[in-house]
């Protein structure tokens, strides 16, 4: 658990972060989003003390981070940045082993861990273990960057626009790998981005920042449907609002549980915008839904997709104005 209590940071006369308080729960995926200069990266970098806070307190599991040596604190967290920052003179293996080596893990354990991480991030260990960073593509480099951050099994992962420099396809695959990894390991993630689609896709909760203040902190659904300010509405964007709205719910959420239908079924976790796409592609208004074990879980109707939820009132306006 990460707690910010009235934390501030000034650089000269400029206030980067202005008395911000929030809590990130254990295992939560928290996205910080905002325009550039909003203070989101500063907040992230204060968590591992790369930037010292001027005022207020930051606690991890109730312990003030000032009571720890910065290096010790950082070794307990993963850190991934947009420009990756792999050590160019070290092999992939040695890069990934950075923190375990600093922590003095025995060699065989490090080696096994590197193999495990390379496989987890879809990099063939035999091929890439001994490669140097300049031999890898941008996407592969960031895979190694993520592996390096996860190496010492940190309970917190800090990510500063990790996928912003990647092409859309690579970005999407890394996003789903990250999702899978964090669900498997239960790692708490604090993730900075300026891309709302990415935020909506990954986050448990989204914190929107502007001018050093946290102006809204809510679930993706709430951000879409009840934006706290015009800025949040702008960040969400008016284009394709309906599809974004659909994307934050799944087929399982809206399926009629008692109904049954034959044909190729959708998994319950399919986002609704995909389900809509599927209906258009198949020229149908109803699709069967199955759960994780392949058992029928109901039928999704086109009319259920356009049926608005009670909490959609505000967001519906936003969409309507587009």
């Amino acid at each position, binding site marked *: 658990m990460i707690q910010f209590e009235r934390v501030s940071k000034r650089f000269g006369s400029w206030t980067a972060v202005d008395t911000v308080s929030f809590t990130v729960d254990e295992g939560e995926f928290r996205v910080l989003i905002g325009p550039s200069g909003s203070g989101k990266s500063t907040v992230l970098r204060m968590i*591992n003390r*790369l930037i010292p806070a001027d005022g207020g307190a930051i606690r991890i599991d109730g312990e003030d981070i000032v009571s720890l040596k*910065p*290096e*010790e*604190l*950082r*070794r*307990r967290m993963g*850190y991934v*940045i*947009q*420009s*990756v*920052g*792999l*050590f*160019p*003179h*070290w092999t992939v293996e040695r890069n990934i082993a*950075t*923190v375990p080596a*600093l922590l003095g893990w025995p060699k065989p354990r490090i080696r096994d861990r590197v193999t495990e991480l390379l496989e987890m991030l879809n990099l063939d260990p035999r091929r890439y273990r001994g*490669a*140097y960073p*300049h*031999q890898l593509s941008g996407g592969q480099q960031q895979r190694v*960057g993520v592996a*390096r*951050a996860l190496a010492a099994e940190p309970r917190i992962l*800090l990510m500063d626009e990790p996928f912003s420099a990647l092409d859309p396809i690579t970005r999407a695959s890394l996003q789903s790998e990250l999702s899978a990894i964090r669900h498997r390991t239960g790692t708490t993630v604090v993730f900075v981005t300026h891309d709302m689609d990415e935020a909506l896709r990954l986050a448990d909760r989204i914190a929107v920042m502007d001018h050093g203040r946290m102006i809204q902190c809510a679930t993706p659904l709430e951000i879409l449907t009840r934006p706290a300010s015009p800025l949040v509405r702008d960040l969400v964007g008016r284009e394709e609002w309906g599809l974004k709205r659909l994307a934050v719910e799944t087929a399982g959420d809206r399926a009629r549980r008692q109904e049954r239908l034959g044909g190729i079924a959708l998994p319950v976790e399919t986002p609704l915008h995909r389900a809509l796409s599927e209906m258009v592609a198949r020229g149908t208004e109803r699709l069967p839904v199955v759960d994780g074990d392949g058992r029928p879980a109901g039928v999704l109707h086109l009319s259920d997709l356009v049926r608005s939820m009670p909490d959609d009132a505000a967001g519906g306006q936003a969409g309507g104005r587009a």
Partner: protein
Amino acid sequence: MTGMAGMSPRDWLTDRLMLGMVALVALVLGMPSLKPLFAALYPGLDRPLYEADSFVRLTLDHMALVGGSSLAAILIGTGAGIAVTRPWGREFRGLLETVATMGQTFPPVAVLALAVPVIGFGPEPALIALTLYALLPVVENTVAGLEGVAPAVLDAARGLGMGPAEVLFRVELPLAAPVILAGVRTAVIINVGTAAIASTVGAKTLGLPIIVGLNGSNQAYVIQGALIVAALAVVIDAGFDRLAGWLTRWSNA
């Protein structure tokens, strides 16, 4: 870049460092046996071979002067370069860089000559002048090399939990090493030449046969000294070439 291990006999024959080393050793040890050749080339000379000091002695003294001054310059220069790239020393960086840049416009031979009025004759002024001069490229390149390390790499290193010393020794210095080495190479090559001229301020180096030969119109002496100094410089330069390849071997993988 060919590694030092696994060279075929053919590589050995075409390797600049190996060939240069063989030539240098042959020249230094075999110069006395070339006496008949010089006697034939310069029949007018009573003494066709420089024999006041052995070439082995002169070569060793020359290398000691260059090595000593370069080592001192590397220690002080990289130290100063590291100091002014740390947060507590950053204020002095501009001054140090300015001094290093301006100082390099001073011709080394003039710096050597100026050391005499200040310190006197002998090997000491040569050692001090060579050290001072060698400092400049070392400092300049140390600062440039350390500043050239990508900010993202430093951010990642700190973010992963490396302390200042670990960042410096595991990341910054290895990455700056090729640039620092280029400065050291410049310094050493200049010093090989300046050390030869240092024979005029009383240091016994390979320049001595040349100076004696020039003053006494003995061309044989001049050639003997010049050949060995030139071979020494080429060998050292080739050595640095090899070292530079080794330091950046990761970038050629």
